[in-house]
């Protein structure tokens, strides 16, 4: 009787120590849910969701402060992925936050640029290159198409150019099988 009791107490102590040690040793830094939500978001950092970037929006979703349908660049597929991850009902995109647009990149009309650096300060991913009173230019490959640089430009020399289809980014279409009328 007593032996059994000792054994149980011994086990409890041992397991307690093991659990306590692993809780310290394998502590997960940060909230893994935020990181998983952030991984689904398109990282345009455009702020259309009314949060100052994708990470803050992910944090807001994780804390239940924001809805899952506030990200137009993520599109319908993004909302579905979020609904899937969080186990909530899918809901269509909230038009208040904008509508999905084809992917575009910012273009600076270099002859008009006065070198004010306002767009450089606005760019969330440092995709604009330039210095004060020097011409600025967009690094096309890094531009997320967030449009945040368009509004601050005092001379309106930034336009959004949709990415044209070329043999490199061309995609095979979904097969469409024509329906034929066989008999009237």
């Amino acid at each position, binding site marked *: 009787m007593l032996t059994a009791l000792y054994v149980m107490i011994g086990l409890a102590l041992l397991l307690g120590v093991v659990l306590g040690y692993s809780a310290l040793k394998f502590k997960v830094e940060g909230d893994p849910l935020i990181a998983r939500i952030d991984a689904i*978001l398109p*990282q345009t*950092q455009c702020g259309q969701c009314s949060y100052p970037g*994708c990470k803050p929006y992910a944090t807001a979703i994780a804390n239940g402060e924001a809805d899952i349908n506030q990200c137009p660049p993520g599109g319908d597929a993004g909302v579905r992925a979020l609904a899937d991850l969080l186990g909530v009902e899918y809901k269509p995109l909230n038009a208040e936050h904008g509508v999905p647009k084809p992917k575009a990149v910012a273009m600076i009309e270099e002859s008009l640029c006065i070198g004010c650096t306002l767009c450089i300060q606005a760019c969330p991913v440092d*995709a604009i290159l330039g210095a004060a009173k020097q011409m600025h230019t967009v690094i096309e490959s890094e531009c997320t198409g967030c449009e945040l640089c368009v509004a601050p430009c005092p001379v309106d020399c930034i336009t959004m150019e949709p990415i044209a*289809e070329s*043999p490199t980014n061309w995609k095979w279409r979904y097969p469409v099988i024509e329906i034929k009328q066989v008999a009237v």
Partner: protein
Amino acid sequence: MNAIVNLNKLFKFNGGVHPPEHKFESTSMPIKVVSPPKTLVLPLRQHVGNVSKLQVNVGSHVLKGQLLAKADGQMSAAVHAPTSGTIVSVEDQLIPHPSGLPDISITLQSDGEDRWMAHQPIDYRNLSKAEVLERLREAGVVGLGGATFPSHIKLREDTRHPVKTLILNGAECEPYISCDDMLMRERAIEIVRGIEIMQYLLDAEECIIGIEDNKPEAASAMREACVQSTIDIAVAIVPTIYPGGGARQLIQVLTGKEVPSGKLPTDVGVQCFNVATAYTVHRLVNHGEPVISRIVTVTGNVKRPANFDVPLGMAMDELIKLAGGTAEQADLIMGGPMMGFNLPSSKVPVVKATNCIIVSAPEIFPEPQPALPCIRCARCADVCPVGLQPQELYWFSKSDNFEKARDYKLFDCIECGCCTYVCPSNIPLVQYYRYAKSEIIAQDKAKQAADIARERNEFRLMRIEREKAERAQKHAQRTAEATGNAGEDDAKKAAIASAVERVNAQKAGEASAKAEESN
């Protein structure tokens, strides 16, 4: 011949089909060498990898074989002038691509002289292998079986995966195509010379040429040529079955080794090249000629189907005219009927990937029957040479369930079209796979871009924080300096005060002394 592999023992791969061959039509006449036409259009993207970098200006005169665009990085190949003439434009033009979209191309106006630039053979045995590979890269040598993968990458010796077996692919399994067949019949010894160079570069222990048993003339020509070779080259006759000419399928038939999913043939010690690639290697190394022409089969609804040695960049309608056909109002197919694609126009140029042009006609390729629902008969799974489950892939691709499609090894699909060929419901299965593949590739790219954007955004926020902290620190430093000055002032004030006190005390002392005196 003491071949290391027992060629009496061949292996089998799963499935495969036997579509009507239709090779006889285009093999009755020898290869015709086509003289360069007036205008040539050379796309800068004729290979897998980076677009070549333009090296000439509009208006400049070039000689035959002169470099027009050089390879950009390792994964690229150069483009050369197929004849002498003047560069008249560099602009977007229609290219033979399933998208039907234009791409950057050079237009060369021939001067009719067809004058070669100075060129000489490469003494490859007295050069380092790296130098020879560099020459291959500069000469635009790519896989001519249709994939146009830069050959210098495949010919690089890899110490981790040494190539034991070098396989030359002369199987040419797809119906209608006969360019490799004719090349082997007529230029066997030149192919063998190319194989010798490849064997030297890879240091392969054995070389095997795989030829399907429906090409006995090519096989005997190659056998004769192999006897004259300085190295042991075996000719293996493999059974005719589609897609037995797929690189992985041929490797399996000849060596019994199945290249694992997601691995390369070199991982099992094998490297595979098309016979036409060996021919271009020979032309470059032993004659100094870059890749400026290729053999093209022109067949289908033409009067004189045949094979032509065509300068790259020739418009396809001109070539079809030489075969006694008209390109107007006819669908053109580049490649074979199983894996080829419809061309956007008859004006597109012949490129390095053009092995065959089929002039379509309703009696050759009748309109496909309307697709019916899948009845899960699994005939597609029976014929799939990769051993996939095409019916499952079809469901997943159709419903945009891309992750599942990827799990079911969609990317191992070689798009051979066997499943579509046997489908009793006429479902265009391969089209669904191509759709799903390109969607997945696009998604992956977007994900990659998003990861980079996240990193850059995080770095930017970090930098702003850091700058703020630095500013705060500077500010704090300045305030500290200001208060330090205040302390000095206090000390001065104290010194002045004490001096005043001293003076006052002195005055008081003097005053009391005076008072004492007056008293």
